[in-house]
């Protein structure tokens, strides 16, 4: 390739910037130059050569292309439409232009029109390849979907090239199936939309030429999908054919697959074994077009020929140019398993791992004997080459959220016959392992079949490699290997293509690439793009291509077309079944046992109510004062903190007091502030003290003689003398040994106090000492406490002891009833406040109930231990989980009851948690109890949930401000 090569010529208008006679005549040669930026005359010229100041900012608007005569004097400039793209081609060193004057008036005046012909040659520098580097390590805004500057310059280049080819009317000699002409128009349209979006952005760079050009990052491209559009899309994607063939899993797989799982196994193996492509003759990459170098110029003069290079190649979607034949790369040998949660995605993947192995792996396993002597030890590959990737033909890499690592490992083991599968968790301490040596082909005999790691590990190794200038072998870890297969679990974690995690995942090398997600599209079509890019599905993994055929039609409201295209993309890639699908004979795909959700109304005690009312009044006052003053957004943090306290006070008034309050919510910080501010809050303090005064005292039931207890136990009459309930509800005795229901007794005492009377016993009219009321606790639910031949053990518990709040009391009562009926059942208790879980613990201990706890503060190992213990336990056991730690992925099907201690803003989050128990593998009916305080914000939160049922999915995707607005609306509803 010479320095430059002619590709065509075109006519262009220019306008003069000078006046005079005979400045320009037909046939004159003019130089085409980029206008260098000139500083405004008024600005003082510093000693710098060339105006370097704010080049980046100026470039954005500066597209001026001027033409000069032989002496270098400017005669005029190209009209803007042409200059727009000619400037890009010149700036990016793609083309050079030589001009000839076609027509100019004899007497030139400033602003006259002249006609030029431009000869265009491609520069050799245009063909130097540019690729995304592993070291691409820019910081990226959170959810924003703006173009990166890299994407922008690519787009400019692409547009300019397409326009050039249009102008010189050069048509491809070979191209992709889409008609080249239409395609160009669409390409330009797409680019234009992106351009307008950039322009439309409010930002300093538009007005301020000298300002820095930080791209505003709250610009959100990619419109959200409406629910019905999403539905249409899914409906198409999940037109699952129940007649597709099934495959039997390998013998080493120890579980039984359901028919639909065998079908997906068959499908997955088809995808992975798609060998046709390897045998196919090399075909051109679908995105590229082939062009012949012209042999004659526009004047029909012959051009110098380079026989070894008759053609060149253009990718109109990326603006890339190439001299080499762009080969169609292998098809994606993987796909998206998008079954709805609970259909057993993990199990299906494990069956695939067992059933489809590489030849090397099969050989290795046949000869699977530990090496008998040192001589037989495999020689490890010596990695010298930079950026080299070593094959790991036996290993499947699983990337999953941290909380699911242990579960993956245990499921992998459960699904395999003993000794047929080696799995390892690559996380924390185990990360010290030399993964490269372990998984390489030379170690095939001992290589792990499955390596399980977290997104965090992927990201951190990626960043390390980036710091080593992209040398993959510098860390002998994930990126040094080309795995047989990679699986991303909960793959919507990478839905933002600009997030570092997504970028890191793209770089994982593997022959087969799979993503697992129940929601391939969270709410934008772009979510899907990131998965496609990870899967390396040509050509859709090219963002420009994607934008042209999907984003743009969609945004210009051509929904059907966009969705059709998406459908075409998805169809061969996605397997998706939903829980409500029915087999042709009308049976549900997975017959999950029924689930019942019941709301348990909680009545606060008087002292709890006082605390609640106090906080409520104040929160309400603050909120509406701010509404009036228009400062809601400003005061958001403190308003939110007050609402948080309000919700906590529904659970337990003490929560409000704790300074070291730990919530799993994002506003934990705010809550801490709020709690700190409480010290001055004397009124509230005294209210809480009043609450604790009645509860801090620990019961001393031993003070009562055994005969009293047996008397109570043997008492024939078990009807409440006040309400006639039989047996009494929470039988409570007075100091004078007369029993009634707890509430009846308390009501009566209150009734008398209200009348300023000294409370007296309803039976014997003795004065009652309020502190001498004892609840009779019959341990008939506790299998450990049964006294042989004597009936259940009875203890007396001083009323209010154990620091119980109304909710805890109700919970314990529920659990005791549960244990009485089902002595070996297991239950899960969710709360979003870990500190509330800490208050529930002693109450469980008091009732002699076995419990375990799982929250976000625990290390991976500890979690695994807890989950394992819970699963294995065959006794009555309770698992306390913070809503956040337990929301995703976990499998808790060994439990049959769920207690939701407090409502969350959207029910979807709670439903997720409930589905940990009510998911595939659950064999019994699941009962869910949601504890809701009557006449409180909790009850109103249920209404908010109701209203938001349909937009629940989008909540996670809103910008921070939108989220806040949404919350403010919610709060208004709570307080009004």
């Amino acid at each position, binding site marked *: 390739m010479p320095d430059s090569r002619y590709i065509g010529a075109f006519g262009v208008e220019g306008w003069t910037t000078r006046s005079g006679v005979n400045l320009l005549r037909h046939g004159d040669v003019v130089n085409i130059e980029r206008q260098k930026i000139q500083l405004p005359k008024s600005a003082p010229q510093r000693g710098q050569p060339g105006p370097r100041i704010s080049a980046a900012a100026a470039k954005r608007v500066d597209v001026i292309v001027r033409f000069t005569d032989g002496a270098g004097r400017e005669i005029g400039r190209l009209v803007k439409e042409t200059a727009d793209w000619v400037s890009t081609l010149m700036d990016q060193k793609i083309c050079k232009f030589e001009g000839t004057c076609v027509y100019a008036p004899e007497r030139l005046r400033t602003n006259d029109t002249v006609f030029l012909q431009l000869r265009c040659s491609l520069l050799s520098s245009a063909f130097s390849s540019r690729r995304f580097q592993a070291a691409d390590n820019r910081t990226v805004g959170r959810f924003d979907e703006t173009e990166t500057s890299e994407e922008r310059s690519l787009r400019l280049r692409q547009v300019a090239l397409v326009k050039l080819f249009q102008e010189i009317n050069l048509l491809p000699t070979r191209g992709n199936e889409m008609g080249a002409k239409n395609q160009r128009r669409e390409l330009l349209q797409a680019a234009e939309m992106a351009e307008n979006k950039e322009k439309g952005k409010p930002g300093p760079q538009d007005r301020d030429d000298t300002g820095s050009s930080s791209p505003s990052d709250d610009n959100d491209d990619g419109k959200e999908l409406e629910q019905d559009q999403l539905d249409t899309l899914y409906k198409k994607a999940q037109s699952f054919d129940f007649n597709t063939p099934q495959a039997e899993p390998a013998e080493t797989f120890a579980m039984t697959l359901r028919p639909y799982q065998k079908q997906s196994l068959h499908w997955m193996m088809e995808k992975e074994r798609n060998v046709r492509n390897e045998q196919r003759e090399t075909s051109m990459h679908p995105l590229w077009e082939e062009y012949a170098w012209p042999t004659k110029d526009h004047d029909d003069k012959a051009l110098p020929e380079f026989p070894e290079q008759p053609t060149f190649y253009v990718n109109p979607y990326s603006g890339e140019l190439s001299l080499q034949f762009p080969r169609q790369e292998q098809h994606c040998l993987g796909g998206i398993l998008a079954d709805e949660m609970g259909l057993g995605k993990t199990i299906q993947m494990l069956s695939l791992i067992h059933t489809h192995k590489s030849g090397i792996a099969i050989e290795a396993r046949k000869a699977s004997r530990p090496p008998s002597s040192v001589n037989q030890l495999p020689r490890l590959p010596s990695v010298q080459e930079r950026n080299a990737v070593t094959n790991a033909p036996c290993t499947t890499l699983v990337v999953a959220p941290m909380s699911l690592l242990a579960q993956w490992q245990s499921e992998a083991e459960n699904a395999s016959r003993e000794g047929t599968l080696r799995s390892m968790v690559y996380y924390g301490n185990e990360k010290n392992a030399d993964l490269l040596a372990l998984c390489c082909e030379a170690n095939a005999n001992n290589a792990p079949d499955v390596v399980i790691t977290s997104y965090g590990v992927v990201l951190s190794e990626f960043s390390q490699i980036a710091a080593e200038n992209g040398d993959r072998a510098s860390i002998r870890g994930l990126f040094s290997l080309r795995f047989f297969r990679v699986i991303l679990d909960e793959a919507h974690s990478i839905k933002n293509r600009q997030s570092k995690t997504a970028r890191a995942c793209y770089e994982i090398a593997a022959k087969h690439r799979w993503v697992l997600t129940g929601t391939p599209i969270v709410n934008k079509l772009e979510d899907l793009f990131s998965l496609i890019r990870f899967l390396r599905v040509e050509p859709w993994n090219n963002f420009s291509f994607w934008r042209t055929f999907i984003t743009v039609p969609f945004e210009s409201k051509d929904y059907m077309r966009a969705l059709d295209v998406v459908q075409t993309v998805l169809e061969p890639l996605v397997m998706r079944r939903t829980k409500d699908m029915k087999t042709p004979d009308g049976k549900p795909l997975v017959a999950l046992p029924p689930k019942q959700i019941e709301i348990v109304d909680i009545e606060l005690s008087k002292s709890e109510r006082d605390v609640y009312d106090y906080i409520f009044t104040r929160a309400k006052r603050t909120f509406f004062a701010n509404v009036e003053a228009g400062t809601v957004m400003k005061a958001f943090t403190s308003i939110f903190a007050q609402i948080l306290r309000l919700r906590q006070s529904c659970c337990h008034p003490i929560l409000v007091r704790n300074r070291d309050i730990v919530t799993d919510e994002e506003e934990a910080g705010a809550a801490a502030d709020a709690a700190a501010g409480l010290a001055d809050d004397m009124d509230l303090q005294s209210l809480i003290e009043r609450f604790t005064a009645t509860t801090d005292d620990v019961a001393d039931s031993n003070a009562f003689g055994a005969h009293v207890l047996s008397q109570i136990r043997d008492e024939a009459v078990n009807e409440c003398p006040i309400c*006639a309930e039989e047996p009494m509800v929470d039988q409570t005795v007075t100091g004078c040994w007369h029993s009634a229901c707890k509430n*009846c007794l308390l009501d009566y005492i209150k*009734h008398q106090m209200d009348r300023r*009377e000294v409370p*007296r016993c309803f*039976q014997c009219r003795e004065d009652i000492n309020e502190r001498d009321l004892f609840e009779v606790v019959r341990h008939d639910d506790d299998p450990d406490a049964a006294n042989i031949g004597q009936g259940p053990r009875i203890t007396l518990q001083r009323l209010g002891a154990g620091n119980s709040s109304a909710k805890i009391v109700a919970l314990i009562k529920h659990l005791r009833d549960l244990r009485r009926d089902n002595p070996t059942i297991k239950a899960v208790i969710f709360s979003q406040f870990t500190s509330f879980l800490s208050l529930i613990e002693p109450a469980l201990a008091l009732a002699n109930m076995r419990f375990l706890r799982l929250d976000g503060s625990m290390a991976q190992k500890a979690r695994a231990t807890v989950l394992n213990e819970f699963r294995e336990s065959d006794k009555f056991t309770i698992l306390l989980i913070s809503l956040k730690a337990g929301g995703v992925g976990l499998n808790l099907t060994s439990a049959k009851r769920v207690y939701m201690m407090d409502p969350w803003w959207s029910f979807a989050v709670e439903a997720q948690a409930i589905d940990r128990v009510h998911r595939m593998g659950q064999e019994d009916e699941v009962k869910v109890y949601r504890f809701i305080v009557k006449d409180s914000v909790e009850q109103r939160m249920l209404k908010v949930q109701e209203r938001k049922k349909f937009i629940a999915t989008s909540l996670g995707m809103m910008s921070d401000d939108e989220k806040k607005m949404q919350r403010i609306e919610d709060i208004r509803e709570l307080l009004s």
Partner: protein
Amino acid sequence: MALPKRIIKETERLMAEPVPGISAVPHEDNLRYFDVEIHGPSSSPYEGGIFKLELFLPDDYPMAPPKIRFLTKIFHPNVDKLGRICLDVLKTDQILDNWSPALQIRTILLSIQALLGAPNPDDPLAADVAKSWKEDEQAAIATARAWTQQYAVPK
């Protein structure tokens, strides 16, 4: 308002195991309102009479006592002209209040029946009756008998 379990149970029991000499039947349209009949105790001036009373269970029953009064005219030191009864367990004032939620319709009616057998002129409600009772008990008892014959004996 749904009828509390306690009232239902009491009513059922009054029906199932009636107290001799006492009947209490709730109104069909208001189950808190009872028509009561008490037979005058034998060897008392009220013997032979059947005294009608009305009994009403207020909303806060059994925290508060039932409201009850004689409908049949009766000459008794603890019953006034309006039929109101002076009985410690029925009082609602604070000092003498002897009501307890453990008491029931049945026990209250029994107390009233007992009161007929043993008038207590030292704790009068009808001052004039009490006065005549104290001054000339025989005459008072005769009057009581006459009133019973006149107002309480079914013709």
